[in-house]
């Protein structure tokens, strides 16, 4: 019946439930999708992993336009519905055993003149108050605040007018016609939100302005003309921050400075919500720069592979498995972590590490791939007898020890088929290796539960020069498609790697990993890739938005070290009032690199002489407004000389002390002084310390009152 969009909202009591308000009310619960075979009736698939189940329907109320959920826990099934004729009806969805609920359900709040109800908002603190926003009427108010506990009383209604209600309505307790407050006229009310910082204040999106009504004084209202009047909502973490929208634009407001929006956003790109740990850095480990090119490139340039047929360790019996060796393959094995230095393929150290970490099956497989069956059996036995070990490993060891290279043996036949029933993938591939024809190792290579590095190492050992690049290519594409960061091993930090990272970021939004990884790709063309720049900027913005300013500054420093081109040139200078020259003039004739011109106010360590006058004209530098000492430039801290190694590497304590001495000033009144003095002054005062200056310096900076989330 309704041509407009349905209303949808989350339950305030159950994080997995929501209600859709259309021609009827439907309560849904979100849960994981059941097994693919079954699709229960009433289940709506929402994504690959989640589906919504319909829990309850309420079609009692017609002409519904908007809905609001009762904020308190009891009764939790209570909803208010706004109708096309302006009536607000209380109804329930789901179980209602509570007696207060029964009293309230069915109550109707009827305005004097019928017009559409656009929005409803329950007061979060005084839950008897329900605000309704209606379309305009020439003789009526657009914002009505109902008290849901009030009863119909004919005396209280509009004087001398008979209320014409149907006989059903005349049951006196269920219809209320007199609102507690009536606010706002001449404009329709399109959205409402109670202010969290003061539950007597109501923010309303009227047709052409945002208005704040105060229930304590209904004749006054604060308002600001704007187009962004829909969907007003208060930031639950930041009670002074409010958002509203109109068409494609979102406006963010600061309630303390309400005249203009603080920020306007248009077509915001995909929001970043996740910040996963950068586990993949381990892959980088301690590689040298040439290694960053990835195994894919390494194996392409093969300086010559020798094929060898090694013996099984501990026996003279030769395998019919050819092994391939070359410098590049050894390098690749190193990257995979199987071997450390040296041309010898010695995996013993790796095996011991795996044993220590109780990765028995994996260690056994690696040992086996190195043609050391006894070692593999030994490892499996250890695993079986270890604390909380798996006794079945002994059985596996037994099976292993029966190895025979007889192609038509029962052992081979059984192992080849039964291995698929082994739960652990490494055990599975062990038997695949032993029962495969040489050169046809798909059973090992495409076992996706085996770590990528192990499969690649295996390939580097057993695939010929013709087969190896093809496999690496295929695997790389698989990784790129899935956005699996294990593939960095293959792509390295090259353009390929950026493609892989892009796929990963598309999937996860994890710009933290992307930024840190790519920064290590010091070849300039990787860093110059616009995608990489985009991830870095997004990460920085994310840290800023979460008020992790110190972390972001540390990241900038880290980035500046790895990519000097990212440091912006200084754009402003402190110049002397008298001669107009930069006061760091003595340090260099050219503009200096690096941020932070305020460091030039530092009074340096006691051993260096302090310069308290302009280097250009010798006139004195300004004085601190509080301690009346001249500011000064230490001769030592001038990066402009270009000899950055000479820079004093200040320890953390020194740095903190130094900041207190930094010169800072208000951009409005131009007064200032030592940072430490200014900070402590403004803790107790609002006005500038200079007499006769009434500037409220600290309050001009809206972010000045924000506390960083990471106090270092």
């Amino acid at each position, binding site marked *: *019946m*309704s*041509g*407009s969009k349905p209303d949808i909202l989350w339950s305030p009591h159950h994080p997995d439930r929501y209600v859709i308000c259309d021609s009827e009310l439907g309560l849904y619960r979100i849960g994981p999708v059941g097994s693919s075979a079954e699709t229960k009736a009433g289940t709506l698939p929402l994504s690959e992993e989640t589906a919504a189940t319909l829990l309850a329907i309420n079609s009692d109320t017609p*002409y519904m336009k908007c809905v609001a959920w009762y904020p308190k826990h009891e009764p939790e099934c209570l909803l208010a519905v706004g109708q*096309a*004729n*302006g009536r607000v009806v209380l109804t329930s969805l789901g179980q209602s055993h509570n007696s207060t609920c029964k009293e309230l359900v069915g109550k109707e709040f*009827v*305005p*004097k*003149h*019928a*017009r*559409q109800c656009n929005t409803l908002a329950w007061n979060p603190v005084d839950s008897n108050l329900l605000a309704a926003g209606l*379309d*305009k*009427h*020439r*003789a*009526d*108010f657009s914002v009505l605040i109902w008290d849901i506990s009030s009863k119909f009383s004919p005396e209280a209604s*509009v004087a001398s*007018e*008979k*209320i*014409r*209600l149907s006989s059903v309505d005349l049951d006196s307790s269920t219809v209320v*016609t007199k609102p507690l407050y009536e606010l*706002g*006229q*001449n*404009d*329709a009310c399109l959205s409402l939100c109670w202010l969290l910082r003061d539950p007597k204040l109501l923010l309303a999106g009227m047709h*052409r*302005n945002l208005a704040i009504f105060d229930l304590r004084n*209904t*004749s*006054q*209202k604060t*308002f600001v*003309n*704007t*187009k962004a009047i829909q969907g007003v909502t208060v930031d639950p973490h930041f009670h002074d921050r409010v958002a509203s929208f*109109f068409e494609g634009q979102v406006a963010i407001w600061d309630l303390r400075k309400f005249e203009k929006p603080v920020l306007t956003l248009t077509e915001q790109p995909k929001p970043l919500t996740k910040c996963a740990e950068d586990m993949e850095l381990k892959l980088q480990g301690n590689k040298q720069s040439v290694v960053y090119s990835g195994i894919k490139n390494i194996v392409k340039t093969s300086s010559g592979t020798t094929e060898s047929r090694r013996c099984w360790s501990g026996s003279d019996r030769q395998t019919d498995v050819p092994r391939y060796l070359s410098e590049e393959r050894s390098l690749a094995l190193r990257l995979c972590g199987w071997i450390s230095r040296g041309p010898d393929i010695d995996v013993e150290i790796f095996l011991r590490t795996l044993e220590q970490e109780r990765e028995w099956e994996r260690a056994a497989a690696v040992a086996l791939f190195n043609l050391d069956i006894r070692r593999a059996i030994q490892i499996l036995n250890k695993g079986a007898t270890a604390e909380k070990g798996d006794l079945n490993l002994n059985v596996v060891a037994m099976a292993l020890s029966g190895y025979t290279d007889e192609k038509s043996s029962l052992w081979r036949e059984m192992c080849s088929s039964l291995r698929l029933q082994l739960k652990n993938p490494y055990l599975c591939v062990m038997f695949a290796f032993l029962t495969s024809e040489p050169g046809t190792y798909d059973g090992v290579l495409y076992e996706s539960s085996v770590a990528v590095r192990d499969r690649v190492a295996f390939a580097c050992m057993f695939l010929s020069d013709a087969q190896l690049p093809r496999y690496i290519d295929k695997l790389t594409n698989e990784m790129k498609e899935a956005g699996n960061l294990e593939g960095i091993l293959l792509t390295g930090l090259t353009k390929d790697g950026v493609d892989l990272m892009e796929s990963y970021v598309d999937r996860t939004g994890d710009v933290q990993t992307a930024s840190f990884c790519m920064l290590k790709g010091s070849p300039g063309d990787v860093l110059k890739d616009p995608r990489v720049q985009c991830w870095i900027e997004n990460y920085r913005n994310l840290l800023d938005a979460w008020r992790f300013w110190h972390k972001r500054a540390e990241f900038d420093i880290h980035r500046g070290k790895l990519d000097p081109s990212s440091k912006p040139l200084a754009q402003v200078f402190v110049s002397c009032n008298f001669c107009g020259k930069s006061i760091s003039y003595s340090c260099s004739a050219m503009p200096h690199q690096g941020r932070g011109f305020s460091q030039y106010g530092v009074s340096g360590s006691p051993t260096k002489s302090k310069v308290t006058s302009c280097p250009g004209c010798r006139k004195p530098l300004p004085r601190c407004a509080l301690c009346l000492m001249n500011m000064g430039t230490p001769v030592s801290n001038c990066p402009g000389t270009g000899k950055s190694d000479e820079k004093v590497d200040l320890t953390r304590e020194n740095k903190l002390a130094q900041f207190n001495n930094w010169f800072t000033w208000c951009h409005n009144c131009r007064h200032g002084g030592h940072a430490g003095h200014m900070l402590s002054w403004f803790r107790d005062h609002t006005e500038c310390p200079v007499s006769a200056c009434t500037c409220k310096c600290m309050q001009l900076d809206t972010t000045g009152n924000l506390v960083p989330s990471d106090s270092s």
Partner: protein
Amino acid sequence: MSLPFRCKFFSLTETPEDYTIIVDEEGFKELPQSEHISVADATWLALNVVSGGGNASNSQPIGVTKIAKSVIAPLADHNISVFMLSTYQTDFILVRERDLPMVMHTLSSEFTLLRVVNGETVAAHDLGVSNGFVKPKLVPRPIIHPLSSPSNMFCVTSLDPDTLPSVATLLMDVMFYSGGPKEPAASNEDSSHIRFFSFSLIEGYISLVMDEQTTQRLFPNNVLFTSASGELWKMVRIGGQPLGF
């Protein structure tokens, strides 16, 4: 309800004498050229009184009574004609475009003047003319037009735009096809009963003015917005000579 055309202001009123259409420039382009349509000589601008703009004492809705006193009377003192259009939602005061400087000058002492530009409300710039205006003469205002009052009672009502399609044929029937023996009274010359129907669609809001019998006879329950008090209106016709200055 999305309109396929850009007309944002439309009003059609049927009276015994004629049909009056008030339409904005976009809507005017849609109207066909015809000898049956006579167009007024001027373009008109719509004014709307908004209360509560910082004025603390305004907590009551502004009604026509207040508007008459504070807007129409001062304008009349300056010989400025107005055209009033009242709807279910609000009251519009239309003034001729050429009168705008005088209107602004007259009203700026009592009111803050605002313009709506691209949906944003901005301060209206004073057109800068402050010299050469005649000081208002405070003369007594005699009633010079005859007044008459038909017997039928009227409803000022509205409806949910989403339900418009379902009543469109009804409306058209009432507006255009119900000349004839529908009323129990034999002829329309019976002065106690008047044919009057007004339909407005202004910025997406619908307003209807029709007599009570029509509402009850023709419209199904629950479609029309009515006041909870069921209030009805009595009409006073200002007749005689042409109105305005």
